[in-house]
């Protein structure tokens, strides 16, 4: 069965019209997933359970749920009951959660079929796809290039057409940057729109649950299924964006678009021109597009602020990984040595270095100098964004200024005055904005996305704007064929 190019909606229609059976689809997906095992994109398959679940669901066809029988992968930092969850870290090898993340339970309630767990940069740390304990994951369109991360496996599997959607998590840009590198859609909803209960935390003041799909309408479907307040997550909220699938076409012509001129002007010539052409097209479609101001010193500080805050938080959120209660334990003469050895042998280089920088910021003498300062600047960034969203409804940002870099290029630094462009997506983590990347430009099989942001908690507006832009740009449902 060739299902790979089909969207969630198309698969749904085929299921309810009985053109394909859920079991047949599940089996086809398992077959295709097994074919890409050497990509390292998959940490664990859930084949037996997926087949049993599909058989159960075929008994009663729930035509009301658009996700009924739809296969997906979960990033391996989502707790899945009875299924190994390692977050691509050796220290968590063998850990079997006794509960589901709320988002996983919600998807299960809607009848979505969990095919397996997708690999990531260890514990969500890294933007490349090179830091999973199970080996590097490369771009499905060109194995000399990065796939991006940290939601690397999820991006790979959606871009390759193995599943029509996958879960991801986004602390800095972990969904939106790989989406840009892979011609797919990646959405980080508003902070707290989707419960984080059961998401292994990296940096709780920034972490957000989100998804990859291959078009914006499918994204609305998975968001409708998973948004909502959860008593188990103290930072979750009741979001007013509901029935987003039904309302996806309803963007008002009064919506104002904005961009930061210096950001667009700092892009390479071709990409810059593409943005200005798009702005002209928007204007000719009746939309207002205006230039907005943003203090450059704040943009230049994004990378440092991100490191100061997220690395510090990661030290404390991962303090429970000690090899004592669960996961992999190393030997030692006493508990201090056992924990130290378990952590030293269990974590990869990138993670350990981030912990060290985090510990540096958490050191008593540095807490005021660095960490408190970072949080003050975070407020300035948020206030600057508030000003932007007083002037415009949608802020357009370039998620990347070029196609996925070659692996060896990741070590090369960009020109210092343009370095801030690498971290610009963190804006939406600092203020909690909904932020979506959709395909924009294509260079052969590779691509460059465009990123669309709205005021926090205006998720529907963000998706509607993305849908309108998707229609104008005209790239969707892309897959990398064998």
């Amino acid at each position, binding site marked *: 069965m060739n299902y790979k190019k089909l969207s969630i909606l198309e698969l749904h229609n085929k299921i309810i019209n009985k053109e394909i059976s859920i079991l047949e689809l599940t089996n086809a997906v398992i077959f295709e997933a097994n074919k890409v095992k050497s990509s390292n994109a998959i940490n664990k398959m859930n084949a037996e359970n997926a087949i049993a679940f599909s058989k159960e669901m075929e008994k009663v066809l729930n035509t009301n749920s658009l996700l009924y029988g739809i296969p997906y992968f979960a990033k391996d930092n989502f707790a899945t009951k009875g299924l190994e969850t390692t977050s691509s870290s050796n220290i968590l090898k063998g850990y079997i959660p006794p509960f589901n993340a709320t988002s996983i339970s919600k998807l299960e309630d809607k009848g979505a079929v969990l095919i397996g767990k997708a690999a990531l940069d260890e514990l969500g740390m890294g933007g490349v796809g090179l830091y999973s304990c199970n080996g590097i994951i490369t771009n499905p369109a060109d194995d000399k290039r990065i796939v991006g991360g940290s939601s690397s496996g999820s991006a790979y599997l959606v871009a390759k057409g193995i599943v029509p959607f996958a879960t991801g998590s986004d602390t800095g840009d972990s969904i939106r940057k790989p989406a840009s590198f892979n011609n797919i859609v990646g959405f980080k909803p508003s902070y*707290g729109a989707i419960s984080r209960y059961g998401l292994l935390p990296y940096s709780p003041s920034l972490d957000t649950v989100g998804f990859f799909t291959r078009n914006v309408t499918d994204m609305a479907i998975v968001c409708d299924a998973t948004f909502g307040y959860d008593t188990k997550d103290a930072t979750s909220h009741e979001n007013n964006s509901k029935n987003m699938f039904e309302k996806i076409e309803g963007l008002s012509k009064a919506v104002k678009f904005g961009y930061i001129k210096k950001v667009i002007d700092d892009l390479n010539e071709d990409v810059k021109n593409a943005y200005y052409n798009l702005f002209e097209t928007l204007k000719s479609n009746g939309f207002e597009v205006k230039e907005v101001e943003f203090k450059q010193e704040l943009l230049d500080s994004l990378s*440092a602020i991100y490191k100061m805050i997220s690395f510090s938080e990661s030290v404390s959120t991962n303090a429970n990984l000690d090899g004592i209660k669960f996961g*992999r334990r190393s030997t030692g003469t006493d508990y201090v040595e056992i924990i130290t050895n378990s952590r030293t042998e269990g974590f990869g280089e990138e993670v350990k270095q981030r912990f060290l920088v985090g510990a540096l910021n958490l050191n008593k003498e540095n807490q005021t100098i660095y960490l408190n300062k970072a949080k*003050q600047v975070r*407020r300035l960034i948020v206030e600057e964004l508030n000003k932007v969203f007083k002037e415009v409804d949608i802020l357009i940002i370039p998620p990347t200024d070029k196609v996925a870099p070659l692996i060896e290029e990741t070590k090369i630094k960009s020109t210092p005055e343009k370095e801030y462009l690498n971290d610009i997506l963190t804006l939406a983590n600092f203020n909690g904005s909904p932020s979506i990347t959709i395909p924009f430009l294509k260079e052969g099989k590779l691509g460059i996305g465009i990123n669309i942001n709205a005021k926090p908690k205006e998720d529907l507006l963000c998706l509607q704007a993305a849908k309108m832009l998707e229609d104008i740009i005209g790239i969707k449902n892309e897959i990398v064929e064998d």
Partner: protein
Amino acid sequence: MKDKKYYEDLAQDSMLKFSDAEIDEIVAKQEDLKKEFEKVLKIDTTNIKPLFYPYDDIHLYLREDEETTTIDQKIILSNAPTSEGDFVTIKKVVK
């Protein structure tokens, strides 16, 4: 410039050990990191309150104390690398 010992102590705070080569690499990277952090230190934050979460309205209430989650003891023990009876075990330290 902080010395190697400083970083070794920091590593110990996070219950980690680094080899000499790793520490050398970290010390070398610190200069870049310091330069990066200095960009932040230059920003005027007089009278600016730190922001801990994206929104100020988070954690403004306490939920009802009725949510309880319990995990079956057997499952907890089965996830532990070693256990005995009702307990997760580690190395015996009191002889």
